């Protein structure tokens, strides 16, 4: 019950961050400094994902092993994407 306020706070934060991502594009940062904008947008997506997984999916209250299971899949995705993309550089 007490968590309703927490969930609401997380929801508002997610809403704001999503808007900020479009803001990065709207202010023309992609044209001015592409890598900075790319990094910023990616970081904001990661923050949002961690917030949803951590609080909406309750990962922070689950045994840490559950987080590791999800990280296993994520590391697999990173390994495939990074190594494959590097292989054609």
């Amino acid at each position, binding site marked *: *019950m007490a*968590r*309703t306020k927490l*969930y*609401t706070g997380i*929801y508002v934060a*997610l*809403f704001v961050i*999503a*808007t900020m*991502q*479009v803001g*990065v*594009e709207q202010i023309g940062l*992609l044209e001015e400094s*592409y890598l900075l*904008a*790319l990094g910023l*947008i*990616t970081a*904001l*997506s990661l923050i*949002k*994902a961690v917030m*949803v*997984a951590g609080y*909406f*999916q*309750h990962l922070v209250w*689950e*045994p840490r*092993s*559950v987080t590791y*299971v*999800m990280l*296993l*899949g*994520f590391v*697999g*995705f*990173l*390994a*495939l*994407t990074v*190594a*494959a*993309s*590097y*292989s*054609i*550089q």
Partner: protein
Amino acid sequence: MTDDTQPRTDGGTALPGDSHDDGHLPPRWSLKRWLVTTNHKDVGILYLATAMFFLIFGGVLALLIRAQMWAPRAPGEGILSAMAYNQAVSLHGLIMVFWFISPFATGFANYIVPLQIGAEDLAFPRLNALSYWLYLASGILVFASFFQGASYAGGWTLYAPLNIPAFMPSIGATTTVLAIVVFCVSITVGGVNFITTIHRMRAPGLTMRSLPLFTWSMLLTVWMMLLAFAALLAAVMILLSDRMLGTTYFAATTAGGSVLWTHLFWFFGHPEVYIVFFPALGAMAEIFQTFTGNRIVGRKWFIVSMVLVALQSFIVWMHHMFLTSINLEVKTLFMATTIGISLPFDLMVFALIYTLIKGRIRWDTPMLYAFGAMVLFIVGGITGVFLGAVVLDYEFRGTYWVVAHFHYVMVSGVTGLIAGLFYWFPKITGKMYDEFLGKVSFAVYFTGFNLLYFPLFLAWGTPRRVFAYRPEYLPWHRLASVGAVILGISFLLIIYNLAKSIVAGDDAAANPWPYSTTAEWAISSPPPMENFPGTPSYASGSLEFLRDDEPTGAAAADGGTTATDGGHAAALESAHDDGGHVDHASYWPFMIGLFTVVTSIGFSGLQTGSFPSGLEGTFYAAASVLGVIGLIGSVSFMGYENFTAHEGGFGETWPFGGVENTKMGMWVFLASDVVLFGAFIGAAIFLRVAYGWTQWHPIPHNPIPGLVNTYLLLTSSFTVILSLVAAQKRSRKGVVASLVVTFLLGLAFLVNKAIEWVVLFQGTEEYAPIALDSSVRASTYFLTTGLHMGHVIAGLLVTAYLIWRAWNGAYVNGDDEPLEYFGLYWHFVDIVWLFLFPMFYII
């Protein structure tokens, strides 16, 4: 005559078998039983029998290949046409790798693993049956593909661009790819089940460290399967999209398209080698221990080595790609990782050899096959080192060296599993096989195999998958063809021996093997329906079967975590009391399998977005509609069915104590979905890199509709959470209202997306129309966001079901778990969108 009361080798004592009937299941002689059963032992037998059928199917194709290669041929000569030969080669590989070896191991895993860990069934019995029926459905599709023009004919690796309709236009080829999709789904369902079972349903006192080696090997196998097959599923789904919808991922004109396929395929393909071999390795380890009377030497390091191989298997895949255009630095890196993965294997082989040296070997049939498997694996491993070196691989790749090496490795796995077949045959059937015939079969098998494949090392200059070769190789190929016939005869001997023994063999004791140490030998042969005559426990240091009124000691065994699951132990014990409490029968897994066949046959007719004209097209369209309706109906009925299964959490649950079975199953499924989406996203990133990162612009002309959809999904995630809060407050109206809002938000997301797509398809005054095949940019956008939309639609169907249940009063009486489990899925769909939105709308 079974003997349930003989002393056990580990100090425990088997109690008389229980008197349970088959828990509402029809008798074994009834066909109906095999259609409805969800019991792990029945499903194991179904897997074993079906896999044996596919062994014969793939074996006949192999004999056709060897007949064609009796002499060097020009196209049109010999018993096979060029196209028929290509199909035989391709389908032999696919059938043996996918439809024989892994399912054969899964059969043993089904039967043996629950017995070894002290579980009465798998965590999700109906999903176990579903996994089998999907496997059979996929096999039927492969069979059907031969009758739809032509089956797939481009090799089992399905390399691009040969795999697209321009070069492989037959409907049968599409059906083959659909069969692999269905097979991947079956593997995922099975993987979730086994991972949950082994982690959560071990008997008290059975820690991970003391887990039997076969169960260890299966646990690592299913983890590898879960992640590797998700990558393959992504690859074949993309391929299907190219074939059925007209996207252009693997088109010859797409920059990086063919290399993308090799990355996706081999990211799965190399772990697949260990997925195939590990179950055999586990069986070999058990057999070595039993037939030498000696514990495996360095057991702890043997397990550590298996874990290392499982992890390393995901960082060696590019050694299959040394002849592609990948750069030299990455080739060198993957040569090093390939050398690295051989080190833990060396340790395991030495452990097996040293176990032989230290023990007193009894050369019974299982031991002969297990020893043979080790010898074949050593030869396969050594010859593989050549292919892991970049420079040597330039010479050997695409030749019969690869064919010979590959078969030594894969068939060493088969040999290990045949060892397991003879080892566990008495347990499964309650009959002893004929020992003399068993030994003869091994002699014929080992001779035939080496006569078939060793000459191929000497004829290595023969190009792979081609029936023409230089005349000087003729003697070696003749020898190989003779060896193929002898190997085929050995399988007939094995089948004859086992079939004869089932009918007229001597009855097997509960434990026919001196020095066996695992729990399956502590109960009658075959085991009773509920497996154990009491609650199995290792808490005292050796296996005991506790009476229902005795404490299990479970809480102490898992750091007290099972105290939180205390209700489950009670549930289990009450199941023991009446034997009829737990369900073992359901029609719906079979029905889902049936309608999967119908749906897949229907959609196989879809080519670049449309069905063929005339009666043929009507047939395919009708089958698609009928299949989809049947599938939705069957899944709904299965969801609604009242089915009681054994719960876990009464014993060892590390490292998932306190996470109930269904929740854990959902998390494990989501981990595989991370890889699935990850492979789709990775494919889009890879193609963008190949295309030129900054030359690639978003397909949607405006990010605002995407932002609106982000708001919609985020809000729907919030309302799902609110439904859970309302359930905890026992507010029925609150639950229903929250779920209805979630449904409406999800629906709004889809409508917004549909409008966006329609605008893109039709074009505007400012922008030209865009279709799936307009460019690879368009293909990645439509397919990746389309996959996400598919997930949203699935979520909405579940939401509608939850609303109906909540309306009727569910979830507000402390039974809100389904809302939480659905929330895990829905939030995951939300998370994926949080990455897709910037990727396809902003950057």
